[in-house]
């Protein structure tokens, strides 16, 4: 569904991604693991189109999206949930969801706010509150819900568990599993190996913008040296 082929990218002259290649298959949850500063967020931003690709190729659903502007990639059915929970602070929960709304892309019924409030019950009673009034966990849920309003077929989830209370992390894992069961494809970045184990089928470990390991989660667990070198576990 998503394929990165020897991608180089970065900020201005600073090249961060170095010949990065990875594949995400339809219906799978793939974890992008790596230490702080390894280039996980940069990968996400490059895929969605917030950062330009300097060389290499990105394809999504068979379409070459390397040079697409961000909104076009999103309209093709890619959702992006940034790591720093960028809810619109002055917009209410309802309005935040409205910004994310896009027409459905396949035969499946589109997400409605009502369904999303079922998935994230905490948001229901907060629907008239502004984004900045929400707690960290609620903001994280709102960014995911907002992305779902665009009826994406693939979601890029940047460190969904970061800075959340353990109880909320569990809730988050449940949600991701539910989404996966509904057929959603997810690429998620994590430093929290435990969380990745709960939800992911496959893993890529990156360091300095290059892939150092790829395989299933079970294979990863059988390689303590990878865990020790790149994840400091």
């Amino acid at each position: 569904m998503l394929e990165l082929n020897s991608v180089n990218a970065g900020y201005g002259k600073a090249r961060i991604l170095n010949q990065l290649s990875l594949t995400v298959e339809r219906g799978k949850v793939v974890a992008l693991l790596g230490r702080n500063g390894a280039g996980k967020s940069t990968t996400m931003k490059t895929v969605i189109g917030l950062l330009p690709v300097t060389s290499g190729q990105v394809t999504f659903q068979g379409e070459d999206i390397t040079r697409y502007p961000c909104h076009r990639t999103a309209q093709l059915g890619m959702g992006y949930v940034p790591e720093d929970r960028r809810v619109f602070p002055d917009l209410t929960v309802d309005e935040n969801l409205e910004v994310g709304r896009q027409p459905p892309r396949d035969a499946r019924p589109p997400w409605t706010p009502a369904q999303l409030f079922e998935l994230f019950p905490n948001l229901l009673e907060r629907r008239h509150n502004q984004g900045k009034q929400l707690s960290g966990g609620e903001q994280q849920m709102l960014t995911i819900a907002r992305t779902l309003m665009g009826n994406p077929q693939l979601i890029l989830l940047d460190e969904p568990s970061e800075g959340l209370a353990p109880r909320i992390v569990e809730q988050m894992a449940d949600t991701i599993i539910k989404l996966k069961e509904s057929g959603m494809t997810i690429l998620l970045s994590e430093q929290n190996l435990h969380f990745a184990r709960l939800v992911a089928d496959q893993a890529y470990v990156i360091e300095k913008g290059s892939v150092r390991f790829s395989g299933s989660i079970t294979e990863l667990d059988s390689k303590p040296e990878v865990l020790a070198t790149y994840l400091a576990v």
Partner: protein
Amino acid sequence: MTAGFIFAQFLTGLSSASSLFLVASGLSLIFGVTRIVNFAHGSFYMLGAYLAYHLIEWLPTGILPFWGSVICAALIVGVVGVIVEVVILRRIYHAPELFQLVATFGIVLVMQDAIFALFGGEDKFGSRAPGLNGVVRIFDEPIPQYDLALIALGPVVLISVWLLLNKTRWGTLVRAATQDRDMVAALGVNQAWLFTSVFFLGSALAGLGGAVQVPRESINLLMDLSIIAEAFVVVVIGGMGSIVGAFLAAVLIGELNAFGILIMPQITIVLAFLVMAVVLIVRPWGLLGKPDAIQHAGDQIDMPLREASLPGKLVGLLVIAALVAVPYVLDDFGIVLATDIIIFALFAASLHFLMGNSGMVSFGHAAYFALGAYASALVFRHLGGSMELALLIGPIAAVVGALVFGWFCVRLSGVYLAMLTLAAAQIIWSITYSWGDVTGGDDGMLGIWPSEWARSKPVFYYLTLVLCGGGVLILRKITHAPFGYVLRGGRDSSVRTESIGIHLLRHRHFGFAVAGLFAGIAGSIYVFSKGSIFPDEAAIPRSIDGLVMVLLGGVHTLAGPLVGAGVFRLLEDWISRLDFWRAILGTIIIVLVVVAPQGIAGFFHTLAIRFGLAKGRESL
């Protein structure tokens, strides 16, 4: 003054607030989303007035044709706004503020000439609005019906725009984009269209503001800059991006004008700017504004500044030698031009010092140039005609002015700082313009000639070279002194108002004064080179000239101001003889910003680095 009269005056204030609000709300809306401070907004207002005037004249008289013309004019202006956005502004959304500002000023110049070419230069007086040409008696005072209609129009537009922003999907997207553009794009919204549509609405509102003025005011080619200064004040007082704030501020300014004119007609504009200064000191983001959450994307990190290398110093010596040789190789005309260039090189260098070193973009640096010039002229006139004394007192006056205004300005940053510097310059301008008894008002002050010994062109040239050229060198020394490093340190560590420590604040204040001092020296010399001084020297275009010179030379190059002043003056000298020179100059400015944002000197310097002739950022 009866109560009835006061009430009538109050209503007059409200009705002029309406038009002001229309213009300001458009400006605020555009700024909120695109972060562009659009000088051309005043031109849209002026275009709206001209279009409406001609449509009304052309169509048969009647209520329907009148309002039809007003609305058509607004829509056409909206379309012009869209063209401007798509062709020019879209390319510079990520450029630093200075570039955007200067580009929009280029648009102002082009529009002035375009409107002149289309509609002619004479003032026009619209007829009264059909159906609303009578008066209503309120408390026995006659109130024009049309004023009452305008009073109603303001709130109607306010409510419509508010509903549009708060109750439609488009409005939700616009508000979201105001807060986080990239995130909106990542959710699949095409920002380009969003921005263009905002530009349409904003420009149409400006056009409407101009169109409804037709029955009230004369239509002329000065409308653009006079409204833009006021609209900036309103937007800044209200809080940039806040429509409701713009309404409150427009009413405040409208009333201030209505009553200020009774007490002291000349100083209403000064009052408005004073109110703005006070509001900004108490609430740095305006009445209803929010702290600027978005860091500006355009500010690039520049290469470290180095002392000139040996080849650099050699080139510097060559330049000095060439400057000394000028009177031997050029005729009188050439010497006068060279004198002018050196004066403006110092003016540009002082502005460059302020912006390049301390990151304070001033939209009103002409204030200190004019302060120096006027103080010199006044000293000359009243204290026995001594040029030497005048050249001493002029810069002192400029420093005092810079210390006073600077005290307010250095506390702010970014657009708000720029606006306050603009306000300061407008205050100086309106004093020189309105205080006719002392400054001669619009007629200026004439007969300010150099002392006997300096009267020949070559001698005056050398005097200029010593004072202004010396000034440029001293500015460079200060840049390389520890003081310069402190300023640059403050600039680079993302200047946020709260985080500016007292220490840095004092340095910035001092830096502001230094910039004012050298601008004042340039101004003092300038009076004597011309023999006269006019309020134009304090007006917005003069401040922009300075910015254009800095830009031409390249913001990040120390040689920039010299090159910029030279190129600008020669260019001006050449094209000001042509028809439509404003349009030509404006086009050059726009093209420059879009195509060569590092400036001419910066461009050659980049070339030099590429060919190994220079390393890093040197001070050629």
